[in-house]
């Protein structure tokens, strides 16, 4: 083992302090001693990103971004490349796992108030990652060039035609032509390759911000001294590794036994600009936003609402004025948190169904509720909610919890 105290290790350390940085941020990093398993999802997201990049790069060695060849090149990967089916299913379902993990990670933040001071920039960087992931996944879904790839792209890029005056021009510019075609596929492949590395950059900043302000915790109170914290290693390295095992069990069960569960059968039909599929649905992770898009009767209004539904997260730290972070000590907020979660599921369900009959009304009510949660409920709660008393310190709470067993 290289050591920073002697020999080559010291030579390197004196010139580029990689050892002390690694030690500082992966080993000694003081972490609240009371983190629960919801805190596993950040490291899981990081690992998933690595898996996506590794499988993606290997797929790209065999993939051909051309409208006449893309579909068959993916099938060639599935059939003729050694373990190509495994790579492809890992990548395809890795996208799904990435969103499951990141959505849980975000809702963890909402529940425990992790977006509040001093973590606003950390929170912003997280939203930037979400937006980049969405763009990446959207463009990746185009690559196999099946029916849903083609028609999903057509519908979603067409959204931009709602922009006044220059809408049509923007769409033509995005497509690189007058329809979704070879130029579109090529640029989407190029960007699909690029954006994950941009995500890596933002993730590093996210972690930088985290290590500056330190982790929040289920109590939502600050660490006040060494008795409140434990070193990251070995406590959280081993806990994260156990979580990783569980994650892999779920992920690989899907990959090996239900690889197409989250997919659309239509995407196994080669793209055909002459035949529109009966229902065009985006990937499951976009469904709530798709529902918001369609809930507004006006096209431009729908697009604005859809973007606003994510962008509103940027101002969340100022909409929620409550000083107490964790929902554990906010009895009313806690209930609205769960209602909000249910609302998101309802939106997803509406998004998966054609915009007819009761789905129209449900979608509109759920959309209004979504925004009301942020714009009305949270500011009011900040003013009127009576919060429960906070514990003295993390250490104090941990020792008393050992007696009374911890509460959600």
């Amino acid at each position, binding site marked *: 083992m290289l050591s920073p105290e002697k020999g080559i290790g010291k030579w390197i350390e004196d010139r580029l302090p990689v050892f002390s940085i690694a030690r500082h941020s992966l080993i000694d990093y003081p972490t609240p*001693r009371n983190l*629960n*398993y*919801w805190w*596993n999802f950040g490291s899981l997201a990081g690992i998933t990103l690595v898996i996506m990049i590794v499988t993606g790069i290997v797929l790209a060695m065999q993939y051909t971004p051309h409208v006449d060849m893309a579909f*068959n090149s993916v*099938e060639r990967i*599935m*059939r003729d490349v050694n373990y190509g*089916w*495994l790579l492809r*299913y890992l990548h395809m379902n890795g996208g*799904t796992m990435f969103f*499951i993990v990141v959505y*849980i990670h975000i809702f963890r933040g909402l529940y425990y108030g992790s977006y509040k001071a001093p973590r606003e920039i950390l929170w912003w960087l997280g939203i930037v990652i979400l937006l980049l992931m969405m763009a990446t996944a959207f463009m990746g879904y185009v690559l196999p060039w099946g029916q849903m790839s083609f028609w999903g792209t057509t519908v979603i890029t067409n959204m931009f035609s709602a922009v006044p005056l220059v809408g049509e021009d923007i769409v033509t510019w995005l497509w690189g032509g007058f329809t979704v075609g070879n130029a579109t596929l090529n640029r989407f492949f190029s960007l699909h390759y690029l954006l994950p590395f941009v995500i890596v950059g933002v993730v590093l900043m996210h972690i930088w911000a985290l290590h500056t302000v330190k982790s929040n915790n289920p109590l939502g109170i600050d660490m006040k001294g060494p008795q409140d914290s*434990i070193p990251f290693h*070995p*406590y959280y390295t*081993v*806990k994260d*590794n*156990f979580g*990783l*095992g*569980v994650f*892999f*069990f*779920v992920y*690989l*069960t899907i*990959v*090996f*036994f239900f*690889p*197409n*569960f*989250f997919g*659309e*059968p*239509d995407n*196994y*039909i080669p793209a055909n600009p002459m035949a529109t599929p*009966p*229902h065009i*649905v985006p990937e*499951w992770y976009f*469904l709530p936003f798709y529902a918001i898009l369609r809930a507004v009767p006006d096209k431009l209004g729908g697009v604005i609402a859809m973007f606003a539904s994510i962008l509103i997260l940027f101002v969340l730290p100022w909409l929620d004025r409550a000083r107490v972070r964790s929902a554990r000590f906010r009895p009313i907020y806690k209930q609205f948190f769960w209602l909000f979660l249910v609302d998101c*599921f309802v939106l*997803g*369900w509406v998004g*998966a*169904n*054609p915009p007819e009959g009761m789905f129209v009304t449900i979608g509109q009510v759920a959309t209004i509720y979504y925004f009301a949660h942020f714009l009305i409920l949270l500011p009011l709660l900040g003013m009127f909610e009576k919060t429960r008393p906070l514990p003295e310190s993390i250490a104090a709470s941990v020792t008393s919890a*050992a007696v009374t*067993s*911890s*509460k*959600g």
Partner: protein
Amino acid sequence: MKMHRFLFVAAFAAAMAAGLLFGNFGSAKASGDLAFEHQEWTFNGIFGRFDRAALRRGHQVYQEVCSSCHGLSLVAYRNLMDIDFSEEEAKEIAAENEVEDGPNNEGEMFTRPAKLSDRFVAPFPNEQAARYSNNGAYPPDLSLMVKARKGGADYLYGVLTGYEDEAPEGVEMMDGMYFNHSFPGHQIAMPQPIYEDSVEYEDGTPATVAQMSKDVTTFLAWTAEPELEERKSLGIKVLIFVLLLTALLYAVKRRIWSKLH
């Protein structure tokens, strides 16, 4: 700690439930008015495998019935060796078809018998020719059919066995359309392809409509997912490994954390 563990499990349960919810509502919608029943398939389940005899019979049905209209463009003759056809048999099957090749040294295109490395030869040179011979309808390539329809193998079997001699009272049939209770809209441009004794099975199995439909569907399930057996058997080993590793990590975690309290 108990509470935490419970929450953890709940997280995954919620995620899975989300998947089920979205996944199922989608398919329930699309197959809403369709009538096809769930069949027993040997390739379902975590230990699923393709029945070799059924694959052989299914291949025979494809060759003798379906291949006059439908291509199988993603499958090569050599792939037959993966399902226990001998090299001789696969070569023989290939050589029954002619493919265009070239240009030769004189710059001419020529035809030659197909080889193991060729893909299954399509019945028509292009879509127009296929439509021209089929009353304007296009018989789609069958390589991925089982993966490309909601309901998969069950749906395919449903279509093959779903023909009625006459449309029910009050249903107005369009020109050149046949009534099929499993096909969306019930009007299909494909004439009933399989009848009692359409083929004479080499292994002597009675060639009923149900038998042939089941066999050819099994064959097409294989063409859609040729990796299925390898995937499932590798999957079991991998999951057992992950399970053991995770249990071990859990034990280590308990042990390390026990020092804290």
